[in-house]
């Protein structure tokens, strides 16, 4: 009876060993820059994988390319399991769609100069939700310790599959394609898109990639708070390492706020100067925060914004400037957490 209230039936010693192993694994992963790129079979996939590959430039970077296949939870197939059709396709020698998308991602990676197919590989498959393909993982590991993982995951819905994948191993960055729909907080209560759900609920930074002509530069926005400065510092390192010019930007709502905005940009510039990261230009604007960021940031490759320290549930109900920028921007947006 004493054990009934315990979390598990393992002895304290075993429990601590298991916990330690998990901690070690997570600590090892924490020493690496892990990028989760999500592909869905759309035209944006090329851009998603390309951006992820360009950020994964050194040997301490791991790239995980994920495709989530939703299971038929709503009985839409009328009682005959969709798995039967999938099984039929597999038996006829056809690849499931997700496999095709992941293979295509490999081609995009090789165009970007990463050729994982020449590295040793390991395959792991486990049954999930009764699907014939289940969860399949192919890991390519370079001799330098860098890994590229292709993962085909089955989940009740795509957004939850991506968020579950985060829980399996912490990631530094989730990269997603352009949202096909993005609703306001009230409408999202009833039905939110995949990108919206992931952006709002992900515990780590999220990059929403939009296709378009090749641009350059990180357009890093700051409001002068210490949280925002942290985001500036971390995003600037990413920009610097990937060789992108940095533009610092701040918006004041009124003309009276301009000095504060100028100070925020100046402080951010000083911070980066101390880190020996060059700043290409600084800009200050007066007006509506979201509109100004979206308008001026559209000339750059990536707009960098940060949540105002809001929790997941606050973001869910109140939204944030960052999520509004992700929604309305015409270029890619990095939401730093």
């Amino acid at each position, binding site marked *: 009876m004493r054990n009934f209230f315990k979390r598990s039936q393992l002895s304290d010693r075993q429990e601590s060993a298991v916990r330690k192993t998990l901690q070690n694994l997570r600590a090892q992963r924490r020493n690496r820059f892990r990028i989760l790129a999500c592909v869905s079979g759309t035209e944006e996939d090329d851009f998603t994988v390309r951006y992820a590959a360009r950020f994964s430039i050194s040997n301490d970077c791991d790239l995980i390319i994920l495709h989530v296949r939703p299971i038929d939870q709503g009985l839409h197939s009328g009682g*005959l399991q969709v798995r039967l*059709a*999938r099984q039929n396709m597999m038996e006829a020698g056809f690849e499931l769609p997700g496999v095709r998308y992941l293979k295509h991602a490999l081609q995009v990676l090789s165009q970007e100069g990463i050729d994982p197919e020449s590295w040793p590989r390991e395959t792991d498959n486990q049954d999930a939700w009764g699907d014939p393909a289940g969860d399949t993982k192919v890991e390519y590991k370079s001799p330098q310790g860098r890994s590229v993982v292709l993962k085909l995951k089955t989940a009740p819905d795509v957004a939850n599959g991506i968020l579950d994948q985060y829980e399996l191993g912490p990631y530094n960055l989730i990269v997603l394609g352009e949202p096909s729909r993005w609703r306001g907080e009230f409408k999202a209560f009833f039905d939110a898109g995949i990108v919206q759900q992931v952006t709002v609920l992900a515990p780590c930074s999220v990059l929403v990639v939009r296709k378009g002509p090749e641009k350059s530069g990180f357009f890093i926005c700051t409001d002068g708070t210490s949280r925002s400065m942290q985001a500036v510092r971390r995003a600037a390192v990413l920009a610097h390492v990937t060789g992108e010019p940095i533009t610092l930007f701040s918006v004041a709502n009124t003309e009276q706020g301009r000095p504060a905005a100028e100070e925020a940009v100046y402080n951010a510039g000083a911070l980066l100067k101390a880190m020996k990261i060059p700043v290409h230009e600084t800009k200050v604007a007066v007006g509506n925060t979201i509109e100004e960021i979206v308008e001026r940031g559209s000339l750059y490759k990536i707009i960098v914004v940060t949540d105002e320290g809001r929790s997941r549930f606050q973001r869910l109900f109140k939204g944030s400037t960052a999520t509004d920028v992700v929604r309305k921007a015409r270029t890619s947006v990095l939401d730093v957490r």
Partner: protein
Amino acid sequence: MTATQSTTAFSLARDSLQAHESSARLSRFRRRGYQRYRLVSSQVDLSLLWKRRWFIIAMVLGFLLMAAPTPSGLTHGGQIVLCMSIMATILFVSEAIPLPTVPLLIIVGQVVLLKVDPTRVAQSLMTDSVLFIMGSLMLAVAIVRQRLDKRIAWWIVSITGTNVYWISFGITVVCGVLAAFIGEHTVAAMMLPVGVTLISLTSNDPKKVHNLAAVILFSISYGCSIAGVATPSGGARNAIIISYWKDFFYDPADPASRRYLMDYLTWIYYAFPMFLLRLPIVAAILVFTFRPETTDMSRAISRLRTQVSMQGPMKVSEWTTVVIFLVTIIGWIMLSDTLGLGVIAIAGTVAFLVLGLVRWEDINSGVNWGVVLLYAASISLGVEMKATGAAEWVAASVLTGLNHIGAGSALGFNLIISLLTIGVSNTMTAGAAVAVLAPIVLKTAVVAHEDPISAGFITAISSAFGYLTPAAQPAFTIIYASGYLKGADFFKIGIRMMLLSIIVLLFLSSVYWPLLR
């Protein structure tokens, strides 16, 4: 310091974007000795409340409505049934909980809230219609497992030739005829590999043959979809409406009410023209909506010929499958009014199992048993709607509303039923839509002095008009799993098909069906 030196000084993992450290805050508690607090809090999943928000809303709303004063003319039991229907509808649409949980809740609600005798509830769950739905699903798995797809495809192309338009028409006709008898999902699952074979043999790059893929795959799915209403065995919705006609209107003491015992052949007289009239429409819409990148498929067909010839002549097991299939259809046509549709379907499945053509394990894993539960409980709830007078009360209210908006005429009444059913079936699975709506529609037809048979057919047939999304139809869901089509493709063709289907249905209900009475 040079740029290169400063670049190498940074480590992305250490200096750039960070992974969220969930245990950082909790470690403070741990240090303070709140280990148990940490264990409990780690097991409380607040996001589950968010995921289940619609369940909570449905429950709160349902119980508030149950506690509200009973409207005049409605019994308290009827009020509870209506509230249960509203709760079930919210759960069907929102999919807040796994759908098979909804029928389980309905069963519990009938006993606990409606105080219906548990034995009576259990009996109401297993009717011939439910047996038929279960049997036809098992039969579907058995047939799909025989892998007759390539032979059927070869038979189609040997008649149609190598032109993609004729092949598309041939596929629509053959899939339609098959789906009319064995259910749309069966044929879609069976023919999907053939469709993908034809596409992939034409080009390995799906982007280069997107329109061709759309024409071929939509031929399969629309062939299946338009035929699903042609015979009672085409889909669960048909069995549900047959069950309601019997439960609501058949009185053994009244010979005139025998027409409500719908037999297989009479259903075909009513509904098969719906399939025949829409065949050319599907062919035309496909051609005009998607212009294939190539019209000559001779390369793909010569490879298909090679694949079929490698399979050799038809095996005994394949011939046996064909024979069992034909005998089952003949049984449905000739013997359904004595043996019932369900028993014949079950007998067909037994034949497959006894002859070793399919393993029970395959059937067990291929059938989504939740669907059987769902339909069983929905029919049971529909019967309670009638028993408590709830259906009649709603029908009277609906009719008053219809008269207010000037839809009191037969055509207006049929149009409103059709639009209502399409609207509901676009938000939930078609069978559930029919199960929820049919009791109200049938009772409204009686109050409005319209024919319940026509009203039932309109409901069943309209529930198959949800063409707008990949999730709207079983055949669409299966075809979408191939990965060749986009969600937008379904809307592009679906909206045209939906409008034309409504026109054909109204034509039949106004001109043809009155001739059959």
